[in-house]
């Protein structure tokens, strides 16, 4: 049960990353590798700020702003300086690696016995359960701290999902979605498509950094390596989400991204439990994303071939 709760919590926290990537990867169709750097940026900045006594909420908010800035720079590199999108992301990600080391002053910062954004929820739950440090959930004894983290990440994830869903349906959000679809059309409607790209990447990486900030507080440390492969994990989550609920509307797409992230974390937890070597995790994820990307085309080809074979058989 603890395993499941842990996977759920991390899934919910990382769903903010998936929501951010939904904006870049799905809405403006920008493959943005800044993500690997900006999630660490969020984590390291928050860790340092909390360690020096900042209010966890304020520290988390700062992480969001730092992410905004990182994404905006990637956007400017691409739109203003005409650097290819992948390269713009790689440049920013590489720069962020040093910046994150600078922020932390070393490669790892532990957060022990410091407050976090789920402290209040934990206190509330402790009060409800009468001061015990374990509570009964469907017959399982679960640490109150874990439930607190689960609840707060659930609330935060839902809240952001609702705001994002609303935002993408506004006049501004509608044009944002059109930017990835047809930038020429967006210009013809009087909107600077480059500004939309910069804005979207900023918002996207803001959410990613937010995710990193909360992740650091949950797992109790920030590490300069923690972002490696995160972008591919986000992709995997989005792909799973799409397969799960489709993309018939914005609401469904958002729901899919969240459910996809949680399911992905559960799958990972189960695979690790069954003895998958943690070192192989990124390889497995990469292969999975590869398959998910090529599978639709392969199925189509296979279908065509089968049809051919069948019509041949019929002719004879």
């Amino acid at each position, binding site marked *: 049960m603890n395993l499941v709760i842990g996977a759920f919590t991390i899934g919910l926290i990382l769903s903010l990353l998936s929501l951010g990537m939904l904006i870049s990867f799905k809405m403006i169709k920008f493959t943005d590798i800044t993500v690997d750097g900006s999630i660490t940026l969020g984590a390291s900045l928050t860790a340092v700020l909390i360690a020096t006594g900042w209010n966890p909420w304020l520290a988390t908010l700062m992480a969001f702003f730092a992410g905004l800035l990182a994404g905006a720079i990637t956007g400017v590199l691409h739109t203003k300086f005409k650097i290819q999108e992948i390269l713009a992301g790689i440049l920013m990600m590489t720069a962020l690696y040093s910046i994150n080391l600078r922020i932390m002053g070393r490669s790892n910062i532990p957060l022990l016995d410091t407050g976090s954004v789920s402290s209040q929820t934990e206190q509330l739950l402790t009060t409800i359960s009468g001061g015990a440090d374990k509570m009964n959930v469907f017959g399982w004894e679960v640490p109150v701290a874990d439930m607190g983290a689960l609840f707060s990440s659930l609330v935060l994830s839902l809240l952001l999902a609702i705001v994002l869903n609303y935002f993408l349906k*506004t*006049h501004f959000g*509608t044009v944002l979605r*059109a930017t990835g*679809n047809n930038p020429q059309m967006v*210009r013809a409607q*009087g*909107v*600077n*498509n480059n500004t939309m790209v910069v804005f979207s990447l900023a918002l996207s990486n803001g959410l990613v950094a937010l995710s990193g900030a909360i992740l650091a507080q949950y797992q109790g440390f920030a590490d300069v390596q923690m972002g490696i492969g995160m972008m591919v994990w986000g992709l995997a989550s989005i792909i799973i989400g799409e397969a799960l609920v489709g993309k018939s509307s914005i609401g469904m797409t958002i729901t899919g991204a969240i459910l996809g992230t949680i399911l992905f974390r559960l799958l990972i937890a189960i695979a690790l439990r069954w003895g998958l070597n943690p070192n192989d995790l990124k390889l497995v994820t990469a292969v999975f994303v590869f398959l998910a990307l090529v599978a639709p085309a392969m199925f189509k080809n296979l279908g065509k071939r089968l049809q051919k074979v069948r019509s041949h058989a019929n002719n004879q």
Partner: protein
Amino acid sequence: MLTINNISKTFFPGTINEVKALRKVSLQIKEGSFTAIIGTNGSGKSTLLNAIAGTFIPDEGSIKIDGTEISRWPEYKRARMIGRVFQNPFAGSAADMTIAENIVMAMRRGQSRPLKIAVHKNIKAAIAEKVQMLKMGLEDRLDNPIGTLSGGQRQALTLLMATWLKPKLLLLDEHTAALDPKSAAKVAELTKIIIEQEKLTALMVTHSMQQAVDLPDRIVMMHRGQIVEDLRDEMKHRVRVPDLLETFNIIQKRELFDESVARLMKEQYI
């Protein structure tokens, strides 16, 4: 209304691929007039329209709309004044988004984009009412992705979008050329109706001599980046398709003659 003064555009200047697409083109368009631009392939028609729309900044010359110099403005800023329909029926709308979402964007062309829900009931009713006029049954499909429609349907919607907010200038670049004959006729018909109803100032590139004779009240002919004929008023009313073809022939013969003379001279003197 629109005053173009001596604009030029050279692509790949100074290379072997150099193309002088526009050579000191000047053109004045009166408010409320409908002008067709015809000419051979590569004569610079699209380049002229692109220069007006702001796809690129011309090398020299000025473009004014109602006295405002716009030749240095970026494309998106000019969209405030200019409505546009492209040759490619897929270029004017966002395929994955619904008909209603596409139109709602056009309803605020060049205006602010507030953080309010874009597609709601009242707006949809207004959209349905206007889309009905296309007589394509699209008013019942407002929530379908626009990418699921035919080229003709999409082009009709693009035309409606470009003119939803009355543009100071409507630019049409062979907007019926990629359609099947039936859809092309339908879109041409719609173009005429909308331009007349809204009293629009329009500039239309076309390869169809028939369209050039039937729809507009002025015909401009381009050749090699220059305007070589300008038929308006009385002249335009008398002109028929054979006359246009004849003019084309003359221009092409003149050119052939020029080239053969040039070759002769070369052979003799070099």
